[in-house]
């Protein structure tokens, strides 16, 4: 197992819904773009999470710069659209003029991009694959350097990620010949290489942690490389361990706290004192629960990075703050 992602060019970010996939993917992209690198940040669910996070106009199907970094780097955003990807693909392989329109008219494009199982996902990853192979001169081979130094994908949630990433092999089975078949094969090779890592975002709560652990097994079984676990929205405890022990047992020393409060000028009523101790006890139990969950994550043996819960939510400035935390903790060198 490696904690050195210098080989990795494609970073796939997953996690249970609402844990912060989009936010973390954005922060990771910013971190990777320091030192003047050029990073593609893409999403595949058409949710406009990237443009909202960077506070820029909604992304179309074009790759558009969404931010620059101090070191001269840039983050380019892309909202991959399956329909556009299919049209581009057909154009590339078949130079379809009229037939493209006909396919559209007969609902074949809709069928392929929304309903035919798996085809949609192949198209979405196919676009990422294309961007990954692209050179600065726009060609896909030759000596020109890569168009992007790294690609970060804000991927579907843990519940769907295994299928999303293995769909290529499934489709390769369904479509046994033809260009979809052969493209699916090369995509699978890319995904299984050590140039691709999957990071999982979680909170220190039971269900996201459970899904994380399941995803780790599932992804490893599928031959994919799991990179890091990123624990998001971490809140440090308000009391030290000794005080937490006392609080949990309901034995924080009342008289001395009461004295301290009075000295600080509070009118201490029994209700207030009991209430505060009750709150502290609850807090201690929460902290226990979180530590229990952290221990479960540690059992995976994966590197774990922690991002603080920022009190005022997320705006572009906050994303940079989270990016710095990732760099500081060594996730990005």
């Amino acid at each position, binding site marked *: 197992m490696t904690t050195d992602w210098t080989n990795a060019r494609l970073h796939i970010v997953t996690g249970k819904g609402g844990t912060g996939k989009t936010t973390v993917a954005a922060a990771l992209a910013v971190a990777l773009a320091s030192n003047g690198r050029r990073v593609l940040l893409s999403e595949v669910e058409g949710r406009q999470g990237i443009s909202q996070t960077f506070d820029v106009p909604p992304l179309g199907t074009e790759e558009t710069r969404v931010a620059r970094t101090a070191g001269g780097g840039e983050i380019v955003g892309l909202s991959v659209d399956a329909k556009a990807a299919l049209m581009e693909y057909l154009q590339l392989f078949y130079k379809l003029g009229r037939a493209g329109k006909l396919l559209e008219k007969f609902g074949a494009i809709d*069928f392929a991009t929304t309903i035919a199982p798996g085809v949609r996902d192949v198209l979405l990853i196919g676009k990422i694959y294309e961007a990954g192979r692209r050179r600065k001169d726009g060609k896909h081979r030759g000596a020109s350097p890569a168009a992007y130094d790294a690609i970060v994908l804000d991927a579907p949630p843990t519940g769907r990620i295994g299928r999303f990433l293995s769909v290529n092999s499934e489709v390769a089975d369904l*479509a046994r010949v033809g260009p979809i078949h052969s493209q699916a094969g090369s995509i699978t090779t890319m995904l299984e290489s050590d140039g691709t890592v999957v990071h999982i975002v979680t909170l220190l*709560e039971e269900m996201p942690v459970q899904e994380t652990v399941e995803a780790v097994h599932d992804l490893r079984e599928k031959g994919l490389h799991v990179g890091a676990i990123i624990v998001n929205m971490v809140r440090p405890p308000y009391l030290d361990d000794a005080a937490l022990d006392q609080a949990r047992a309901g034995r924080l020393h009342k008289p001395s706290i009461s004295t301290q409060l009075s000295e600080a000028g509070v009118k201490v009523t029994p209700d207030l004192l009991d209430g*505060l101790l009750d709150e502290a006890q609850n807090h201690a139990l929460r902290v226990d629960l979180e530590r229990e969950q952290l221990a479960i994550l540690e059992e995976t043996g994966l590197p774990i990075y922690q991002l603080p819960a920022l009190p005022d939510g997320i705006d572009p400035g906050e994303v940079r703050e989270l990016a710095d935390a990732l760099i500081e903790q060594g996730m990005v060198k």
Partner: protein
Amino acid sequence: MTAAAQPQPSGTRASQAAPRLDIDALIGDRAIGIIVCCGSGGVGKTTTAAALGLRAAEQGRRVVVLTIDPARRLAQSLGLTELDNTPRPVQGIDTSAGGSLDAMMLDMKRTFDEVVLAHAEPGKAQQILANPFYQAVSSSFAGTQEYMAMEKLGQLKQSADRWDLIIVDTPPSRSALDFLDAPNRLGSFLDGRFIRLLTAPAKASGRAGLKVFGIGIQMVSGVMTKILGGQMLHDVQTFVAALDTMFGGFRERADKTYRLLSEDETAFLVVASPERDALREASYFVDRLEADGMPLSGLVVNRIGRVVAPGLSPSRALAMAESLDDGTGPRSATNAAGVLRLHATLVRQAERQRELAERFSRGHPEIPVAYVPALSQDVHDLESLREVGDALAE
């Protein structure tokens, strides 16, 4: 900073703004036979469904709870370890009021298989089950879970003599609306023009169907064959043709279940956490229920932060923590400062949550609301489910 914020026990202002949801009246109402718990992912739908089921059973109703994705430990304490896709009695409940509680966890693939087996002729059924497209659709098609939840609800309803109350959890989708919309998507899959087109050659009329479309179809199917490979198209065709023979009945059933949802015996509960996104989803959902004439009983705001200590404002608490924590005082000063900072955070959070809940209620003043505090532990045994039930009914 909101220095003007007044310290108050959590929930009081919000409960004045909105009518209180009377949970015991709801589960005590024998005319109600189905309660559906909806909401966006992770807000506590499954928890609410299980807590309601337990409470209703202990008050004398014969309840079945259909859960979709319970947290593992909750599943264990409900005895959901046998994954046989049928309800099993839950152990450890108080049956003195004459009620009972069964629970099950939905297995969507299995439910789909059962439908196929029940509707297709034996030979055909096996053909469908073995088709690669069937396998993909039944285990991954967006909306299959919602569709199968409805299917299962319909089945449970048919054995209604075993239960007098069915409580339904809904799948963990991003949007609560998916539960209502997804079943249609499967329908439009089968009604889609392209599918019709693909199946046309398989129909009895032979190639006559194709003439309607002129040469376009040949070109389209030629291109599709080139791209996807002939085998894939062939598989789609046999899959669709096979399903087609049984799907009339299938869709009819789904329609029937959907209608069931708008009948008077059904009650919807919308669950939300006191966060902006979840309440916005709840708001969309409430509007949609209204537009579709579906019976909404109320909103459950789950996991409200608890503030216990009365009469100490956050700004005051923080100022004092600051003065205590200059590093020169005794340990008890550090502890007192920590307790005060914690208190300030809790009050601020409760205020923010209350404001969000109030904003919802201002937009929907007529909708009754119940508030459930965040317990300090996850909810995964009967005891904590009872605690949630008590809070719901408070």
